[in-house]
């Protein structure tokens, strides 16, 4: 998912070899180049944070520069990079994060303090964000020319040739070895510990171990958590349930969020899952989108049916419907899609669950047209739109529709498909094209002469 938080490859890769240990290791999460950056508080370099724990345990002196980190009430700085022309629509592309000068100053401060890294890891989980990697690599090279620079994450995994050619890295680390992937993220490398944290079930972590990680982070005033593994309720069902039960029993009073990795069908398959999640501390479920499912009428019906059941079970578990507590998900931008059908499905999902997130489909570099620069293969620009015979404006229409479906009045969304008097009258008005009245009802510009009044 474009820009969605991720722990990378949660299971890790047993074959991946780390560079040789070093005395001083600098971890860098670069600024983000994108048209928008949602959920900025959840953007954490989860691979780097696990590496930090590993490296510190091995005796390395580790420092972190996170260009996306910001304090809870602080707005992440952004500056415009360029204005794109997307089929005639102006689209701003931004750089999110402190200025290059500010990052250079941080590097200079390290050097001034006599701290020279031997090894620098730069994490990038979204391939179109590669410019941030290139930028920080350039800055690191200027200040620490002797350091080896390693790119970590999806960019290194999916676009290795590009990373070597354009980002100027020395080495690539596509994923973490399994023994490191299962480690808890080390938030103490931050000067100010974030309020949000991503945690992972890993390949074989004990539930108690994860609960201990959460407890330890909560002690450092982290109050918002997301289990970031892909599809935990289906891929590692039993362990996920054990973790939920352990969190429930631990009574930690923390807030948990499902950020697009729980499917509505999970709650259909496991009738007590909503209740278990609620008891564990979940305050929001942003459901997974449908990118793994075919775009057929039959499948749409199944999705809507699953949402109806899931919403009902969540409601019974105490999630308040039509609020931020429950949010559907729909994937948009896949090859071969029919946008009108997507809009219809999106409307029906919100009818069931209250609101919906449009998740732009992020094609891999291999899927995209080869002549499109990597940064423009960004899912938020819907790079497959021309293949679908659609324009960027068409997709913005869908985003606009989602804005209305998600708009809240006194904290709740409007139920366009509801059974109340006003929704029914609204639908009647839509059915008769009430917004296009015949000219005779509109009156005239002239003052009518009224007789007998």
């Amino acid at each position, binding site marked *: 998912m474009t820009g969605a938080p991720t722990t990378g490859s949660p299971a890790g890769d047993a074959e991946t070899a780390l560079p040789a240990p070093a005395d001083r290791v600098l971890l860098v999460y670069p600024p983000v180049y994108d048209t928008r950056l949602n959920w900025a508080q959840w953007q954490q370099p989860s691979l780097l944070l696990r590496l930090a724990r590993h490296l510190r345990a091995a005796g390395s002196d580790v420092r972190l520069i996170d260009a996306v980190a910001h304090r809870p009430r602080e707005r992440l700085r952004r500056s415009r990079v360029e204005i794109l022309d997307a089929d005639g629509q102006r689209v701003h592309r931004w750089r999110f994060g402190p200025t290059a000068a500010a990052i250079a100053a941080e590097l200079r401060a390290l050097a001034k303090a006599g701290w020279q890294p031997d090894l620098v890891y730069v994490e990038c989980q979204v391939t179109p964000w590669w410019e941030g990697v290139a930028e920080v690599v350039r800055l690191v090279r200027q200040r620490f020319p002797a350091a080896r620079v390693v790119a970590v994450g999806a960019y290194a995994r999916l676009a290795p040739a590009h990373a070597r050619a354009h980002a100027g890295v020395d080495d690539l680390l596509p994923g973490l070895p399994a023994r490191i992937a299962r480690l808890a993220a080390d938030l103490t490398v931050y000067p100010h510990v974030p309020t949000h944290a991503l945690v992972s079930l890993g390949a074989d972590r004990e539930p108690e171990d994860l609960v201990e990680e959460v407890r330890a982070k909560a002690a450092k005033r982290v109050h918002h958590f997301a289990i970031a593994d892909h599809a935990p309720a289906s891929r590692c069902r039993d362990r996920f349930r054990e973790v939920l039960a352990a969190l429930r029993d631990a009574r930690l009073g923390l807030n948990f969020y499902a950020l697009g990795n729980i499917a509505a069908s999970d709650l259909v398959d496991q009738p007590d899952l909503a209740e278990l999640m609620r008891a564990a501390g979940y305050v929001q479920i942003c459901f997974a989108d449908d990118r793994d499912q075919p775009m057929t009428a039959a499948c749409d019906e199944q999705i809507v049916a699953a949402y109806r059941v899931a919403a009902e079970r969540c409601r019974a578990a105490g999630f308040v419907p039509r609020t931020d507590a429950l949010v559907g998900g729909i994937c948009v931008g896949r090859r071969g899609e029919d946008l009108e059908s997507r809009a219809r499905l*999106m409307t029906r999902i919100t009818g069931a669950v209250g609101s919906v997130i449009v998740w732009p489909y992020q094609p891999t570099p291999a899927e995209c047209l080869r002549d499109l620069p990597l940064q423009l293969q960004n899912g938020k620009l819907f790079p497959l739109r021309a293949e679908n015979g659609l324009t960027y404006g068409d997709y913005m229409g869908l985003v606009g529709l989602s804005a209305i479906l998600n708009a809240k009045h006194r904290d709740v969304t409007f139920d366009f498909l509801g059974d*109340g008097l006003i929704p*029914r009258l609204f639908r009647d008005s839509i059915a008769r094209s009430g917004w296009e009245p015949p000219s005779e009802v509109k009156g005239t510009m002239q003052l009518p002469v009224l007789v007998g009044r």
Partner: protein
Amino acid sequence: MTRPPARVLADATLDVPSVPAGSRRALLLNPPVYDAQYWARWSQPAGLLRLGRMMRDRGYDVRLLDAMETDARGYVPKSRRKVGGVPQVVRRDDMAKPIYHFGLGWDAIRARLTALFPEAPDEVWITSVMTYWWESTRDAVALCRELFPHATVLVGGIYPTVAPAHAAAKLGADVVFTGELHAASDCWPDFSLYERAPSYAIVTTSRGCPWDCHYCAARTLNGGSNKVRARDPDDVLAEIREKYDKYGVRRFGFYEDNALVSRGHLQEVLERIIESGMKLDLYAPEGFETRFLTTDLLKVMKRAGFDRIHLPFEALKFETTLGWNRRHASTASFEAAFEAAVEAGFKPRSEDINAFVLFGLPDDSLADILDGVLYVHHKVGSIVPMLFTPVPGTHIYREHEQYLLREPKRDPDGGQRLWDLQDLNGKFLPFLEYNRRRYPELRASDYLQLEALMSVLNNGKVLWRAADLCDDALASRGFRTAVGEIRPPKQRRTVA
């Protein structure tokens, strides 16, 4: 002891004499408000401030207590209103609205008045605006009586003008003043009465309206006259210049009965503003008569400082507006004004152009209102929901006075009671029961849903642009397909 009813005086019978400088003390009081909601913008007691200027000119020692004065962020204090220690709630059908005390609390007002007047004032002038706020005016009168038992207490403003008998009987004042005090009308509101000058000012360039719309009290407020009086543009400009130079005010709101009916007058004022070089933010939150909004005028408005305009759409069908005696208002003239505004550079689907949609009237056709909502959503993009309040002195009020005030109403707890003016607040849906004659299933929450619908249609924006459910985009078509597929469930309630 029961106090006799107040004397009801008007311009011809009330004398505000010139006195030796400082020989008479007057308190001007803008009382707090009891309501479920309060919109603190553009709520300045401009009439009281004009009166203050006039009285100062006549030698009075005038001091102001504006209990509704906003803080630097534009907010007024707010606390739950309690009677006998019980928090007040208005319940209508399936809706319950907590009632708040907006503005300074009574203890703070008491302390401020005591500090303001070591020696009691000779006269207390209290302004009272909305008829459904009369109870806080009554309480303000009582407090002033307690603190200054020898002062003459006078109440003026919209409420006493449209409901003089009610005010005379219920407020406990000495004098209820109705209508316009002509000697004060053209005075400039006196900002020197404030310790911290307001950040905005209200300007009135003309008074009167030739029309007599059935829901509007302007005719009553203007003494039954349909004459329009426009101020000298030079005087208006000088007033604006005073606020601009002396108090640093940049935001001005035009409050008029009908700003455009004196052809060319407002345009002349605006052209003078442009010539003056003052950079102003101008607003007319009450809207304009759409027939007179030409592209030329709108261009001048934009250059003078109007970034956004409000258009009275009100109802889609001409037969509806005719029923309100608004033959000068039609969707056709609204469309022409909208197109002129776009041509003049106001951006559609942003908050540059906003349109009022009126609802909550007796005999509302909900289907027509929904059509109107969709029309404005599609055409303009920004809807201003206007819940109707019946105002004494209007045709609609007179026509429905029997239903409103003389028929007992059922409370949600099963009891019955007669309503008073505080119950006629539009937010409390005074015509809910009446409109059940047409829609037996109508609930209070349906009106809240209608308001919610308008709100979400406004809030559905991508960047600055409001999305449109009614356009020909693929997404909109998909939405309409989805809503068109909803079938009535069994045992559906019928819609009239």
